[in-house]
Structures are given as structure tokens and as C-alpha cells.
């Protein structure tokens, strides 16, 4: 039985019941309070159901149908630096699980994900395999992008609490890491876009630093 049916059933049962004289006023007050609470819970449940459907639909629309390549400009506002640091690069995704996050300037580096394999290489250094459990910052970025582009809502929900806000064609997804180690580095990830494409990404670091990524239009 759904929560709304359960609430309706409780209130109906209460109306039909005979309440004896004396002490019945208090009983009626309790019954009304219970009905009210049940109705609220049912309404929230309906909203969750609706939200789930909306979220699932949004994630399904964001799923990359084939190979995707997007240029981006990343701007980091870090307490350590006097000025924001800007980098340019390319993000490429090939379903179901291949991702490349490549910084072209100012310091070239490349993060590659193939299934469960993650490697990182920097100009002049040998590529090394990464254990994302030891790289919470990189993990937030990688997981958010790859799960989203793969349309994998279940995986996204395993790692994050996901909330969606929509306004017409525009949408904004907020991801709060479930893993404590990751939360100590990244407090929140936000993705925003319009229609089927993500346009912006924010990584809110736990120490107040912020990384903002603006994606160019798909090629």
C-alpha cells in the first residue's frame, strides 16, 4: 500500500469510528493530528516519487549517445593563490566508461579512465596508475562526469546524494559526496546546463576553495 493510500485509509477509518462521550475530544484531536501527519508524509512521498522520475528522466537525457568531446576552461579560486588560476583543456567520453580529462595549458596533464582503470600523466613524467580512493579531489570530478555521461543514476547515487532543480529547459544537479574521506576534500559538486548538455561544473572544496569549469558547445 502506498503512503497516500495508507493515510487516506487511516483518516477514513477514524471518521467512521464511533467515539464515546467524555474523553472523545482529546481522541479526536489526536486523530486529526495523526491524519495531518500521514497526509504530509504521503505528500512528501509523492514529491519524492515525482522527483525520482524527473531525476531519472534528466539523467537519461544527459547520457552521451556516442563519443563526446568538449573543450573547457577551468578557473580555480584558491586561498593559496593571489589570482585565480585558469587552465584550458579537453574532456572526451566514449560510452560506456572511457573518459579523458586533459589539461592542455598551462601545465599539460592527462587523466584517463577506462572502466576501473585510472591513470594520470604529466608532461615529462611517466604515467602512473591512480587509486581514486587515495585521490578524493580527482575522484569527485571523475565520478561526477563519467557517471553522468554514462547515464548511470544508480552509480551516481551510490557515491552522492543527488538533488535536481529544473527551471524550464535549464537544470542544476547538486551532488553531495557520501564518502567521508571525499567530503573532507570536496564538499559539493554542482552541474548545470540546458537541455541535453552540461555547460558548467562547480567543485566546492571543503576548505572554501572553488573550481569552476565552463564547457564549450559540443563539436
Amino acid at each position: 500500500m502506498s503512503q497516500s493510500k495508507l493515510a487516506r485509509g487511516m483518516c477514513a477509518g477514524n471518521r467512521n469510528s464511533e467515539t464515546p462521550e467524555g474523553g472523545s475530544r482529546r481522541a479526536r484531536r489526536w486523530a486529526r493530528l495523526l491524519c495531518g501527519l500521514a497526509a504530509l508524509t504521503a505528500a512528501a512521498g509523492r514529491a519524492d516519487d515525482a522527483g525520482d522520475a524527473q531525476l531519472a528522466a534528466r539523467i537519461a537525457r544527459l547520457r552521451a549517445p556516442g563519443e563526446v568531446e568538449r573543450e573547457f576552461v577551468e578557473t580555480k579560486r584558491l586561498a593559496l593563490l593571489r589570482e585565480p588560476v585558469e587552465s584550458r583543456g579537453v574532456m572526451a567520453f566514449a560510452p560506456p566508461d572511457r573518459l579523458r580529462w586533459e589539461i592542455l595549458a598551462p601545465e599539460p596533464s592527462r587523466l584517463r579512465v577506462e572502466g576501473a582503470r585510472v591513470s594520470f600523466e604529466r608532461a615529462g613524467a611517466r604515467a602512473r596508475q591512480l587509486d581514486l580512493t587515495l585521490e578524493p579531489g580527482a575522484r569527485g570530478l571523475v565520478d561526477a562526469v563519467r557517471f553522468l555521461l554514462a547515464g548511470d543514476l544508480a552509480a551516481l547515487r551510490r557515491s552522492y546524494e543527488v538533488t535536481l532543480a529544473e527551471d524550464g529547459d535549464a537544470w542544476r544537479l547538486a551532488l553531495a559526496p557520501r564518502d567521508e574521506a571525499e567530503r573532507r576534500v570536496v564538499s559539493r559538486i554542482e552541474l548545470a546546463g540546458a537541455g541535453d548538455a552540461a555547460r558548467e561544473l562547480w567543485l566546492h572544496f571543503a576548505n572554501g576553495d572553488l573550481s569552476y569549469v565552463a564547457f564549450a558547445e559540443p563539436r
Partner: protein
Amino acid sequence: MSASARLGLAALWLALALGVVALRWEVANELPSLVESREHAQLAELSRRMTDGAAARTLTLVLTADSERAALAAARELAGELRARSDLERVSAGPPAGTLAALEALYFPRRFAFADAAGERLARADEPALRARARALRGALAGPEAGWLAQHAARDPLLLFRTQLAKLEAAQRGALETRDGQWATADGAAVLFARTRATPFDADAQAPLLAALDAAGARFAERGVRVETSGLHRFALNAQLAAQRDAQRISLISFALIAALFVLLFGSLRALAAGALQLALALASATAACLLAFGSLHVLTLAFGATLIGACIDYPIHLAHHHSLAGDARGPLGSLRAIAPALVVGAATSIAGFAGLGLSDFPGLHELGLFGSVGLIAGLAALWVVAPIFPRTLPPTRAQARLAEALARGYARMRARPRACRAALALCAAGIALAAARTTFSDDVFALSLPPSAELVAEEARVQARLGASERARFAAVFGTDDAEALARLEALTPRLERAAAQGALASFDSLAPLLRSAAAQAASERAFRTAPALAERIERAFAAEGFAPGAFAPFAADLAAAAPPPLAASDLAGTPLADAVAALRVPLASGVAYVVTLRGIEDFAAVGRAVSGVSGAALMDQRRFAAELYAHYRAEVAPLLAAGIGLVALVLGARFRSLRLVAAAGLPALLAAGAVLATLALRGEPVTLLHLFGLVLVLCFAEDYGVFLVEARADAALAAALTSIVAAALTTALSFGLLAFSAFPALAALGFTAGLGSLAALIASPLAAAALLPQARSTPD
């Protein structure tokens, strides 16, 4: 004492001995532990701890499938199943949760104490070098690592902790990679580690686990996932099962043959029952004594014990023949009294030989010495207790009578030609001496183990190659009376091994050096940063010049000014994700502690040895070579012991017979039989191993009994009984232990070959020596 009282005593004795055996039963089967000596105590203890330690108890499982994803999923599922097992201490499918937080808590506050040489140089670097460092940090902040870096760089602008973290990560995972928090190999296999609670050599404990792994392997195979295993467990179980199967088979056949012989020769089940009870009392007493004295019984002592049947059964055989062919009117006890001198002298000489083993430095020989001595004493005493079970009279069967007659006739012919016998004896002795002079020895104790099946070896090799695992039997170690001393030696050894690796002597090595440093080294490294002139100010200036915010590194300056944290100790790593690495590579010893360095891809073992030998308290271990050295040491020690044993035997014989000729007639067959075994091995080009030597002790023991029986019976009508009992005893030994020579277990085969051949040689040598050497006038066989 009445017959029923004796039987009651026998029952009580047997119950007590079997009770001790049941309560204390514990079998060991590591060969090196049998031959370790006090002189090599520290190395031997390390060797033993290594075969029993966390690394040895760990099974590695490699899962492969069509896709890496399927292999990883199967590994997760199998890990879940294995975690439910109570016989496993730990199952690891990937780095433990919370690894980063744990490493950070341990090492971030100690980033100065664990800085490497390059880090320490930065503390004194000039401004251009610091600015270069600042630019590198700024570049890294533009990349995907920015979040984590930005959070730590304010306290660690030189990224000392990040460098340390990379080393820790490498030390924790070795040659493995990780995929979504799971262990994996570069070629897409998933990896699991399962550490058993019991030693891999405890076959009883490992059998259910290995059976469960086989069942899981079959189940996964149906889904296209292949599970392969590496570890000592399966090898140990197979070896032990094979040894047990062989020992059981041989024991059964041996018992059946002895029973058939008893029935054929004596036609009496009571004689058989008496013999069986005497044997049971002897073996149970010897086993109980060893378990009480040593806490466990080595599998080789058990094998040796089985052959002791060959010596002990000679006593009831001799009694039965004497009772039957020259019986005393007072019944079996009267017959026993008549042959008591022969039995006591025979047993005394054997016990003298075994007692000599007790003087050895080797625990294995102590065990054999005690087993043999107690077995023989108990066998002799048991004969006195079980004698009333024999029928009061035991008329000879037709087979026995014919055999006795034929032997007496043959022996009389030999006695008629003493010169020819002496010539034959001299010829045999010369031939044996010539051939035996070519004897070679093999000190490879491991060659005595059951050769593992090719299938197991191939699977082990595949898994090891996939993992790029370090060698199991060859490793380096540093010893110290405490952690401080051992770690200081490890710190001295590490750069030497790095140089050896750079020169190609080995591919790489693993040790706890990245995880632990001596307190002195940690303090020195701390000092390098804390006493570097104006380090915080210089960093502030250089980094500010590269765009970093003013005051961004104030936390670094504060840390530098604060008191240094206490040095990290091995005990601090207990309960952390690094505890496994510590358990595998830090070995507490009775005399202190050892830190093990595992070696990978050894190309030039001698060069590695040179690198290690330059460090005080460091040793390069080659388990196989080490065991061989112990064995060589054993051989050097056992020779004078054998000579002393033979001297003792001669003394006992001299005291009894007071005639050189009689002593020679009694003692020479044993020497000839042992020599014949050595000569045969030499002619076959087979080296003499430890187990051949054990067998030779046994041959000396029973062959010398044969000589004593004949010499004791030289002047009376019982000579025919003595001759038949020798034939029966030798045939029993040859038939039962000759079968052991066909065992798949090289140790058992060596023992069987020696005992079987030795008994036949003794059968020929003892009447020949008696005919040649006993005084002619007094020799009047029936």
C-alpha cells in the same frame, strides 16, 4: 606375576600411552626444523617464523574472466564468501577503507621525519630552487589534483607528505594496481588475499578451506571466471596427504605380511596376537615419549618409527622360533628366559647407538634417538608382559620345520668350510669398501620432499608471474636486539640494495624502510628542517614571488616552530592499513627482531650477497642453501657420533662375549650390511641423503641383532631357531620396507631402500660372519 596380571599391566600400559598420544598428537613436517642447530639459532628461527608467519599463511587468488569488470565482480563475490569463514584470519580484496585518513594521521605530522634525501636538500635550497618548486606546485594546482593539494600545501608547500604517500602506497600494494578500490593486475585480473589462521603446514586445518576453494573455482568456471591460487598451503597438503597415504599403505601391507608369516611359520593366532600387542606397546610408548618431550612429532620420525616395526618385531619372532624349535618346558616365559641374554645384548647395543644421537646438536636427531631408544626398551619390556599370550607349547609347523632343517644343513656346510667363508667375507668387505669409497652426499634437504605436481607448480608460476611476486625462498634480513638497532641496519642496507638494483643484480626489493625509520633517523630528518636557517621566511618569499598569496604558508611556519611529534614506532602501525605489511616483513625473534627485505628478479645472487655482507647484522637467506649448510654441518657432526655409537656397541659386545672373534662375528654383519647399502648407492650413482643415514642407523640396529642372536645360540641346539628367526625377521623387513622404496615421497623411498636392502645384506652377512669367525670346535649346530 601371574599371566592375567601381566595382561592387565599390558592393557593399562597401552591405555596410558595411547591416552598421551591422543591428547598431545601434533605432527610437524618442515624439513629445515628437523635439522636446525643451536649454532644457527637466529637464522633458523627467522626461517621457521617465515614459514609460519603472515606472508606464508597468505593465499593469493587470481581471478580472470572475459572482461576485467567481470573478474572484479567475481572477486568481490568470492571475498564475501571467504570473509564468512572462521578459518581465515583476514581476506583482502583491496586497500582497506580509510587508508588515506590513516596514512594522513600517521605520516602528515611526521612529514619532516620521513622526508627523503631530496626533501631534506630542499630545506637548504636557494631561492631559485624554491621558486621552481613553487611553480611546480602552481602547475599541479591547475590539474585535477588541485583540491587535495590546495588543502595540504599550506602546511606542506614542499609536498613532502605527497612524496611519502606515493612511497607508502607503493609499499602497500607492491606490484599490484587498484581498480575502484580492488586489487588488480596490469593485465586485467582481479586479486584476492586470504590469510589463514593456521600454518600452511597444518594439513588438517587447510583441507576444508582448500576443498571450499576448489568448489568455488568450479562454480565460477561455469560462469567463465577462472580462479587460480598461489600459496604454500596446497603444496603442504598434497605432500602430507601423499606421505600419509604411502605410510598407511606400507603399514597395512607390512602388517599383512607379518601376520601371514606368523601364521605360515607358527600356525598360531595367539603368537600373532602377542606380536601385535608387543609392537603396539613399543610404538605407542615411543610416540608418547616424543610427544611429551618435544611437543610434536616430525613426520620423518613417524616414518622412521614405522620402520622400527622391523627391529621390534624381531623380538617376538625370535621368541616364537625359539619357543617352537627349542622350547622350554616351563612354557613361553621359560623360552624367553633362555633367549633373554641375546635379546638384552641386541637391544642394549641398538640403544647405545640411539643414545649417541642424543648427543647431537640437532633436534631432529634428539627426536629420533629418543624414539628409537624408548621403542626398543618398550619393545623388550613388552615382550616380557605379552609372553604369556603365546601357547604353552608351540609345535613347529611343517614350513617352519623344513626351513629350520634346510638352514641348519646349509649353515653346517658353511661351517665345514671356514676358510672359504673367511675368503668370501674378506672379498665382500673389500668390494664393499671399494664401492663405498665412491659414496657422495647430497645436502639438499628439500630434495627429500615430495616433488610437487607439475600442474600445481605451473599454477603457482602463473600467479607469481602475473603478480610480479618476490621470491619466497631467497630474501635478505637485518637483525637487531631491538627495533632501533634493526631499523638502523635496514637504513644502511637500503642504499646498498638500491645500488645493486641499479647495477642489474636484482629487479627490485620491498622492505619496511618507506614505512618505518629508526628514531635516530627520524630525529635527524626533523632537525634538518627545523634548524634550516629561516626556512619558513624563505619559502614565503619564494612562493609569493610565484603568485602565492601573502601569508598562505603561515600554517607551515607554525608547524615548523611547534614541537616535533614523537617518533613513529612499529607498534603505532598496529591496527592501521599498514599492519599487514608490518606483519609480513617484521619478525619478532626470541633474541630481538628481524626486518625482512623481499627480493624480486634476482639476476646475480652473489652481487646481492656482497651488497648485504657489507652491513653488520644483515644476512642474505637462501632457504634451500641454508638448509643444505645445516645438513652439511649435521653430517660433519654425525660422523663422530656414529663412530662413538659403533665403539659403544663394541664395548657392550666385548663385555658380553669377552672374545674378539665373537665380537667380530656379532658386530661385523651390521657393518657389512650398512656398507652394502652405501656401496649399492655409490654404484647406482645416487648420493646419500639424510634419510639414507637414518635408514643406516636402523640397519646397524637390526643387523647387529642378527649377529648377536647367532653368536648367543652358537653352542646350543637353538642355533636352528636363531637361523630361522633371522630369516623370518630379515624377510619381514625386506618385504615390508622394500615396498617403501617405491614410495613417491623421496624421503620414504630412501628410508625403504636402505632398510630393505640392509636387511637382505644382513641376512647373508650374519651367517657368513658366524661361519667364518666362530670358533670351530664349539660350533655344533643341530
